[in-house]
C-alpha cells in the first residue's frame, strides 16, 4: 500500500550486530510491562522455592487429621488437604520441583538437541539427513506416550519421567537450532570468517551462538512451560513424583480425589501451574517480539 511510501525506513542493522545490541535488547525487554510482570513472577518463584522453609507457615508434611479438608482460614490460608496438611506450605515447597523438574527436561533437550542442531545447520550432509529423520520419528510419537514407555522400563520417578520428556523435547529444540543456524550460516559474514581462516569452533562461539540465542531462548521458555505441564500430568497419574515428595501435579490428584467433599481444593495448585506456565510463555513471547521488532526497524 502506498502508506508505506510515506514512512522513511532506516537501513536494517546487519544481522551480526548481536553482541553490540545485546544490552539494548535487555533494555527494550524491560520496557514491556508483560515481560516485567512475567519475569518478576518467575524470580519471585525462585525466591519462594529457595526460602521455602522460612516462608511456609507450617510443616508441609504435618498431618493433623482433625483438620482434614478445611477451607481457607487464618491459620491455613489455602485450607488443608485430605490428611490435614496445610495447602499453602505444600504449595510453597512444591515450587522447588516446579522449577527443578522442567530444568531437568530442558537440560536433556539442550544436551541432545543443540549440538545436533548446530552440526546439522553448519555441516549439512548425511548427519543432517540422519538427525532429521530421527527427529521426525521422535516427533511422531505422542510425547506423553513415549514418556510413559520410558517410565515403564526405568520405573516411575520424577527424574526418569523428566529425562524421558527431555528426549521428547530434543527434536523441537534441534529443529529450532538447526533452522536458526542455517539462517546464520547463509549470511555472508560467515563466509568471510571462514575465508580469513576462522576455525569452526570460533565461528560457532563468536558468530553463530549470539545470533541464534534469541530463537533458542524462546524455544527454551516454551519447553519449560510444556515440561512443567507434562510433569504435572505424570505426577497426577502417579508416574512422576513419588511420595513422600509432592509437586503441584500430585497435589492436584489429591484434590481431585476429594472433589465432592472440597470442590474448590483444585484451585490452588492449578492456579500456581497456570501462572508459572503463563510466565514462561510470556517471557518467550516478549523475547520473540522484541528481537523481531529490532530486526525490522
Amino acid at each position: 500500500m502506498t502508506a508505506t511510501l510515506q514512512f522513511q525506513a532506516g537501513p536494517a542493522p546487519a544481522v551480526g550486530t548481536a553482541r553490540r545490541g545485546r544490552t539494548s535488547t535487555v533494555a527494550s525487554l524491560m520496557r514491556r510491562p508483560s515481560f516485567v510482570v512475567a519475569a518478576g513472577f518467575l524470580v519471585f518463584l525462585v525466591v519462594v522455592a529457595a526460602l521455602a522453609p522460612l516462608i511456609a507457615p507450617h510443616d508441609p508434611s504435618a498431618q493433623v487429621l482433625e483438620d482434614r479438608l478445611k477451607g481457607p482460614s487464618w491459620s491455613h490460608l489455602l485450607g488443608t488437604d485430605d490428611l490435614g496438611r496445610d495447602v499453602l506450605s505444600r504449595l510453597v515447597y512444591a515450587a522447588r520441583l516446579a522449577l527443578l523438574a522442567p530444568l531437568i527436561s530442558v537440560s536433556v533437550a539442550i544436551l541432545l538437541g543443540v549440538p545436533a542442531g548446530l552440526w546439522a545447520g553448519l555441516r549439512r550432509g548425511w548427519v543432517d539427513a540422519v538427525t532429521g529423520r530421527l527427529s521426525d520419528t521422535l516427533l511422531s510419537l505422542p510425547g506423553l506416550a513415549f514418556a510413559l514407555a520410558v517410565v515403564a522400563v526405568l520405573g516411575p520417578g520424577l527424574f526418569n519421567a523428566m529425562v524421558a520428556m527431555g528426549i521428547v523435547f530434543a527434536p523441537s529444540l534441534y529443529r529450532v537450532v538447526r533452522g536458526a543456524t542455517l539462517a546464520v550460516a547463509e549470511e555472508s559474514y560467515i563466509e568471510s570468517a571462514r575465508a580469513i581462516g576462522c576455525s569452526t569452533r570460533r565461528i560457532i562461539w563468536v558468530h553463530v551462538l549470539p545470533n541464534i540465542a534469541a530463537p533458542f531462548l524462546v524455544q527454551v521458555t516454551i519447553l519449560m512451560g510444556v515440561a512443567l505441564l507434562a510433569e504435572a500430568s505424570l505426577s497426577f497419574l502417579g508416574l512422576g513424583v513419588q511420595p513422600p515428595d509432592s509437586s503441584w501435579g500430585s497435589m492436584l490428584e489429591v484434590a481431585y480425589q476429594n472433589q465432592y467433599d472440597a470442590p474448590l481444593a483444585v484451585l490452588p495448585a492449578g492456579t500456581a501451574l497456570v501462572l508459572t506456565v503463563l510466565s514462561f510463555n510470556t517471557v518467550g513471547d516478549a523475547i520473540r517480539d522484541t528481537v523481531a521488532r529490532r530486526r525490522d526497524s
Partner: protein
Amino acid sequence: MNGSVVLRRIGGGVLVLWLVSLLTFALIQLLPGDAAQAIAGENATQADVDRIRHELGFDLPVIEQYFRWFSNVVTGDFGTSLYSGRPVTELIFEAAPATLSLTVMAIVIAVLVGVTAGIAAAIRQGGWLDRTITSLATFGIAMPSFWVLMLLLLPFAVLNRWLPATGYAPMSDGLWPWLSHILLPATALGLASAAELARHARGCAADVLARPYIRTARARGATGAWLIRRHVLRNAAIPVITVLGLHVGRLLGGSIVIESVAGISGLGTLAIQAILQRDYTTIQGYVLFSAIIVVLVNLVVDLLYGWINPKVRA
C-alpha cells in the same frame, strides 16, 4: 497432487514407522537387569523364568528377536499381554473407540472454536474482541487440560448433576448418552489446542487480510461473510492445517490424563495399567499403535494440504 509426491510421503511415513518400531523394540532390551526375571516377578521359580525367556524369545540373538517381533507386528500380531494373556491387538481395539471418540471430538471443538475465534480477532484487529480473544488464548495455552476438566466438572457434574462426571458410553448406546459423557472431557482436551489454533489462525488471517488481493476483492465489492469465505478462509487455512498434525500427537498424549480424570477406559487407561502391571508387550503395542495413528494423521494432513493449496497440486 501427483502420484510421486503421494508415494514419497507414504514412503517417509513408512520409514518413520520402521524407526519407531526399532525404538519400541529397543525399549524392552533396555530393561535393567534380566528382562525375563523382571517380567516373571519375584515369586517365580527358575522354571518359570526360563519358560518366559523362551516364550518371549529372549534367549535368541537380538537381531533374530527383532525380526521375529517385527514380522509379527507387520502381520498384525502385537503379541499377548503379559498380564492377562489376551492378544494385545484385542486389548487395543477394545480401548481404541473411546480414545478416538475423545480425540476426534476434541479436534473438532479445537478447530471450530479456535479457528473461528482467531479469524474473528483478525478481522477486528486491535478492537476489544481481538484483545479479549488474544488474552483468553494466552491463558488457555497455559492451562493443563485435566485441570480444565476438573474446573468444568465443578458446575456441570459436581455442584449440579447436569452431566455425568465419569464414564464413557459408546455410540451404540445412543447419541445423547455418548455425547453427554464425552462432551466435557473433549472440551477440556480441545481447549488448549483451541487456544493455540486461535493464536495461529489470527496471525495467518491478519497476514492474509493485509495482502493486495484482499484489496482487489474489496474493490470488486466483496465484503463481510463473502470476503471471509471466499478469500480469507482458504488462504488462512493452509498454515493452520500444517499445525493440525502436531496437535494430534499432543492430544493423544493429553487424552491419557483426561481418561484418568473422566474415568474413560481408553488407550490411556490401558497404558497406565500396563505400566503398573509391568505388561511390557502391551506397552509396546500401545506405543506402536499411537505412532501409527500420528503418522497416518500427518499423512492425511499432508495430503489435505496438497489438495487445498493449488500450487502444490499442479
